[in-house]
């Protein structure tokens, strides 16, 4: 019963934090330097990982589906299957999970340590709103960065699929044939669908991680606990929201 109350309290606090951050959006221009700083930090920390992960995801999907489809005379479907699964599902979800682990944890740790070592109290005594100073730039940066990373991941994932499809002799589809079938199946709205999902997931990661940082109590152990909670809660919410969004977007 207690955990249920705790969960509702957490959800309520997260919604309030999101609402207050949205109300602070007119302050965004004033915080632009911090937004750019966070934006480049997210890019620097994740670009290589995104590249490797999405290339191999594309490759694995091609490897798993390619031989089966080719054996049944459906070689022309390989590009489409790889293309659509990457852009609608795998790129937004996998990249969001990666960013939750890489960036969400860093956000929770940084804000959590600021809370534990009274830096947030110091901001408040200077009449500086921690939501404007800490949460808004992070949320804005991740909201801009994650969809861009997902677009990049989609392109690299397709490249990985095409590479494996041409290199593996059980599939043996040329680059040109792969992208030609991909183009037949994947439409612009499918890419927008995936990017839209990542936009929502970015909010989830940003708000959940900043909230966990802001409610950190205790010393280093408390910071560790907040980081774990931020990552786990973000991933659980991403997976649940992915189902709900897929249901809505399929209509």
């Amino acid at each position: 019963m207690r955990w249920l109350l705790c969960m509702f309290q957490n959800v309520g606090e997260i919604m309030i934090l999101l609402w207050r951050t949205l109300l602070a959006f007119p302050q965004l221009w004033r915080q632009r330097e911090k937004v750019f700083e966070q934006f480049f930090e997210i890019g620097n920390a994740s670009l290589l990982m995104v590249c490797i992960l999405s290339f191999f995801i594309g490759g694995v999907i091609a490897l798993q589906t390619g031989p089966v489809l080719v054996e049944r005379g459906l070689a022309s479907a390989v590009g489409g299957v790889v293309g659509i699964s990457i852009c609608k599902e795998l790129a937004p979800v996998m990249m969001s999970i990666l960013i939750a682990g890489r960036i969400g944890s860093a956000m929770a740790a940084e804000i959590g340590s600021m809370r534990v070592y009274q830096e947030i109290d110091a901001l408040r005594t200077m009449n500086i709103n921690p939501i404007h100073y800490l949460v808004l730039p992070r949320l804005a940066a991740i909201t801009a960065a994650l969809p861009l990373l997902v677009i990049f991941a989609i392109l690299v994932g397709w490249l990985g699929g095409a590479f494996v499809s041409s290199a593996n002799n059980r599939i043996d589809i040329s680059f040109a044939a792969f992208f030609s079938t991909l183009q037949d199946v994947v439409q612009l709205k499918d890419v927008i669908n995936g990017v839209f999902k990542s936009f929502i997931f970015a909010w989830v990661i940003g708000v959940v991680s900043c909230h966990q940082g802001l409610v950190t109590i205790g010393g280093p152990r408390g910071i560790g606990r907040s980081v774990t909670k931020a990552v786990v809660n973000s991933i659980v919410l991403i997976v649940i929201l992915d189902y709900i969004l897929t249901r809505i977007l399929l209509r």
Partner: protein
Amino acid sequence: MPDPGTERSHQGVSVQVRGLRKSFGPLEVLKGVDFDVNAGEIFVLMGPSGSGKSVLLRHVIGLEEPDEGEILINGESISSPTVMDQYRLAMVFQSGALLNSLTVAENVGLYLEEHRLKTGEEIARIVADALELVDLRGVENKMTNELSGGMKKRVGIARALVIEPQLLLYDEPTSELDPLSAVTIAEEIVRLNERIQVTSLVVSHDRDLAFGIADRIAVINEGQILAIGTPEEVKRDKHPFVQHFLNSHFIRANPPLGA
């Protein structure tokens, strides 16, 4: 806004604490605290660890909400939304609470920068003046983790000075410092009080500091004020805990080896 470091005429404010009560769960930390701090004085709130001093200080600056009672600044309740904007309050934290990701200069100039009160050049000059005032020169570009404990506290004071406070709160200003650094901080508190007429409310368990700098002292234990007055009056107070707190010293029963 005049620059820190120049002679200023702004007056410190008076503080009145009335029937303050605060509990954290079942633990009652403040049990109806009443006292007044006069404008421009150095008031030291002294007591053992866990007596509720720091919690009381956090109430004065508005970081905690009381369960009962109120705090007045120049007779106006701080719960009124306009009061905290009307008066300039600043706090020097026990740990310094400097922002780790910023340099010393960025920390000191943060208030001016975030509120867009001055241009970049003016902020740089004010920061240099504030650091000069606490005897710190040439550290502007250092990161806070390169500073000693005493330097961090002085940077914390410089950061508070930039606000041009009318009430300056110090939370355990000499804790974790060597005796020489503690003396420097004590001198700093008195010098600033004389120079800018700020009201200073100091929380400490350091008896030397309290009797060295205070105009008036209050002794607090278990969330209650036990004695209040000038240092001489507090020394003469008959309350058993006050006498125990002020006069207890550890003396080894057996002589040291080799003596």
